[in-house]
């Protein structure tokens, strides 16, 4: 892959309020295509909030109000004519706790493509399901039990199933909000390995509490504090030579 990163997401002076309280104080940030960007920072600093701005999941919260621009592929996703439903097919999301639908493994994957009409017949759907599961490195483990419920898988497998489900609608971007915090180290390592694979094809933004995880999987790291973006840069640089004292303090465990 060539190193010259193209910018996929442009965030410009993004402010966000929950009711009266401002949770994001003007964030400006460029997220590169085909790479992993990690958001880190202490609890409540607005990482998840910013992430959920990127596919407008925050629309679900009535009290939430947004100002500023979020441009994905140079299109303002908060423009009036943007269709949220379609936006979310382009910007997939993986959640903290694995949340497979209580359906069969196959149906978990096939559900969204069916709604979006991505497969015109059963064979195409089979292919799509297999492809998605393969991309999520899950195919080998589940290929003989596609009709078993997705909830019967182990936690790590469930999370990969959720990733496969997201991949199935062919998004550009995958958002992950602490995708490993409910998993044990081995399952976590597998997800991290998967993220490493996926960044070839997708733009990935991941929120994580674990600085080690951010260091392991990401190419860029953004450090947030109390709703501000304190520092953003190459992960290697952030973790060896941050520019800001606050970043250094947080990363070295000198906070609070």
């Amino acid at each position: 892959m060539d190193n010259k990163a193209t910018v996929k997401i442009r965030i410009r002076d993004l402010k966000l309020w929950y009711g009266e309280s401002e949770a994001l104080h003007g964030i400006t940030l460029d997220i590169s295509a085909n790479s992993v960007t990690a958001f880190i920072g202490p609890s409540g600093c607005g990482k998840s909030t910013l992430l959920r701005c990127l596919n407008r999941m925050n629309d679900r919260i009535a009290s939430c109000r947004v100002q500023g621009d979020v441009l994905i592929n140079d299109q303002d996703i908060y423009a009036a004519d943007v269709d949220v439903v379609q936006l979310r097919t382009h910007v997939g999301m993986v959640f903290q706790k694995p949340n497979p639908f209580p359906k069969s493994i196959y149906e978990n994957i096939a559900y969204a493509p069916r709604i979006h009409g991505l497969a015109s017949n059963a064979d195409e759907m089979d292919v799509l399901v297999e492809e998605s599961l393969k991309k999520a490195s899950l195919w080998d483990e589940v290929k003989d039990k596609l009709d078993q419920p997705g909830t019967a898988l182990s936690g790590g497998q469930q999370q990969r199933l959720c990733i496969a489900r997201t991949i199935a609608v062919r998004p550009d971007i995958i958002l992950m909000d602490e995708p490993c915090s409910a998993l044990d180290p081995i399952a976590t390592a597998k997800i991290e390995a998967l993220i490493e694979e996926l960044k070839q094809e997708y733009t990935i933004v991941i929120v994580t509490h674990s600085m080690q995880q951010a260091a392991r999987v990401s190419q860029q790291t953004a450090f947030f504090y109390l709703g501000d973006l304190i520092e953003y840069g190459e992960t290697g640089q952030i973790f060896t030579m941050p520019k800001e004292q606050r970043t250094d303090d947080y990363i070295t465990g000198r906070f609070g």
Partner: protein
Amino acid sequence: MQTSDVFIWLTVVLAALGTVAFWLCRQRVLAAGGLADIHSRPGYYGWYGVLWLLLPALSLGLVLAGLHLFHLYSLSMNGIFISCVVAGCLGFVRAYRLVEPRFRARQAVEAIVRGLLFVAAGISILITIGIVLSVLFESIRFFQVVSFWDFVTGTRWEPDTAFLIGAGRADEGVAVPHFGSLPIFAGTFMITLIAMLVAVPVGLFSAIYMSEYASHAWRNRLKPMLEILAGIPTVVYGFFAAITVSPLVVELAGKFGLEADYTNALAPGLIMGIMIIPFMSSLSDDVIRAVPQALRDGSLALGTTKAETIRHVVLPAALPGIVAAFLIAVSRAIGETMIVVMAAGLRPNLTANPLEGMTTVTVKIVEALTGDQEFDSAFTLAAFALGMVLLLVTLTLNIISALVVRKFSQRY
């Protein structure tokens, strides 16, 4: 002494003795050792004394009262009172002598309390046995007179002469009674069906609206309103069905050129349906809300609309709960008595026309048991046979719904 006086006196005396017992035991252990030496907190020694006072007294009282009630053995009220107090004191003395610092009072008290809880739990078994036996015995007596096959497949229910036979006047040439229960069950089925046709869509969609669309504030207002429907006694529904709805049905049917009985099945069916709405909606609402928010987020994040998410993810996930709610609602409808007693007909009628009068199992039970007939005529015994069928059907429904719930409960 009057019965009620015994109650009062026993309460007063035992309370007083209990206080003394508590204090005595507590003092005894404190006198024998310092706070650090005694095994349990001092209060436990007190309670130990109290329990040993109360348990013998009250259990003896219960036994004596039982004997009295069943006319097996009678003691005067004074006798009961005195023997209870004496038993209590004996128990206390035993406890008092056991109290010493190394005595594990806490364990002892807890063992007793645990035993009491266990006994309480056993009562539910007794009730079930009671119900099954009471219904079973009388049903057996019924089926000694009437063949089971006739009962199940017969289409004529004309039991009126049975009590004459029961009274030993069979030879007076009265008509043979018929106990064909088919029309009764058909009526029950028809009314249940009508009720479910009302309750299921209304209840389910209300639940969906409340849990998925309504704001929190609205939900908090709407849900109690629906629950009012469940709080209205069935006798009131029956009255309403009979006085208001049945005439309305007749009138409306007339407008359409149809003829309806005043005891038509539609009115009680409709009202029963309305009565059942909250069962359907509350239970469904609960299970729909129990579907984790994460599943909705997961679906919406895939770019689906709200309705799609509800239809394809939320409802399937909640389906076992909804099915269970449905089954419970059905068993409610089948067992519902007052509405049909007051608004449905008395005449068994094998028909598919809901505008005609028809009758139900529960109506027949009430009819049979509220008259002045002897309890052992086939006429009254038939009520128990019907009751047994009712019991079997509702139990089956309930067990199925429990199985459904259990089978799917580990799904998320």
